[in-house]
């Protein structure tokens, strides 16, 4: 077996699954290794991931990085947001997706 470290932002999913080592950054999904073009932050996260590989002594070890996405926390309310006045639209999108899935299953 090979020692592993997961680096990511979906804390509940990773911790529910359970992994050997998890380096968590409280960011929107998409940039687990730091903000785009921010080399300093990315290097720092890499350094913490490597340190965690070495220092953890048992599974389910989670370490949180000190970074915040922004002072403004509106990003927390946009991803997968369900708006009550768009329910009909969601249902239609779901129907289209299910039709595609059914088509693929037949292939």
């Amino acid at each position, binding site marked *: *077996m*090979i*020692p*592993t*470290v*997961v*680096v*990511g*932002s*979906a*804390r*509940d*999913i*990773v911790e*529910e*699954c*359970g*992994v*050997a080592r998890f380096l*968590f950054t409280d*960011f*929107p*999904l*998409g*940039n*687990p*290794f*730091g903000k*785009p*073009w*921010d*080399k300093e932050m*990315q*290097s720092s996260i*890499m*350094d913490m*991931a*490597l340190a965690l*590989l*070495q220092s*953890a*002594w048992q*599974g*389910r070890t989670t370490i949180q990085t000190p970074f915040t996405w922004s002072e403004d926390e509106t*990003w*927390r309310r*946009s*991803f*997968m947001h*369900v708006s009550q006045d768009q*329910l009909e639209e*969601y*249902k239609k999108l*779901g129907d289209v997706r*299910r039709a*595609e*899935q059914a*088509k*693929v299953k037949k*292939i």
Partner: protein
Amino acid sequence: MIKRKSYRSFLSYIDLSREYYAAHGYSKPYAWISNQSVPFTKLEKPLTECRVALLTTADLEKPPGESKQERHLSRKTYAQPVEKTPEHFYTQDLQWDQESTHTDDNDSFMPLNRLAECAQNGRIGSASPRFYGVMTDYSQGKTSKRSAPEILELCKEDGVDALILPAL
């Protein structure tokens, strides 16, 4: 200034996705894997003697197929030499926050350059000559019984001592 909250700060993607897909007419929520026991492998060597690799769920390029579902079926586990890293990985079919951010900078989710720098400055022994890719699969059986052993084999071929898994 003291901040107080009546909710946890970090988002629950299990809750969010359940409500999102219920609104889209899916009657049965996805059941996430929930393990009681977790395997753990200790790093037996100092990092300065280790070969370290990266594994991503992003694709090298857009897979063939009209729909996301068709493209998903054609995806396979891969190993790619680092010198053939794509200018941009294909991430559009994956679930990430496309409203708040972007994936134009590979190193923000697949930090091959940052890992290479660690090899150059002696923080690690070396970076693996190849990086690896695995598809995001709704099937937990396929992930653990097919994809994971494939990735382990690729790591062994390259003499990898430790693996970093950035989750997009």
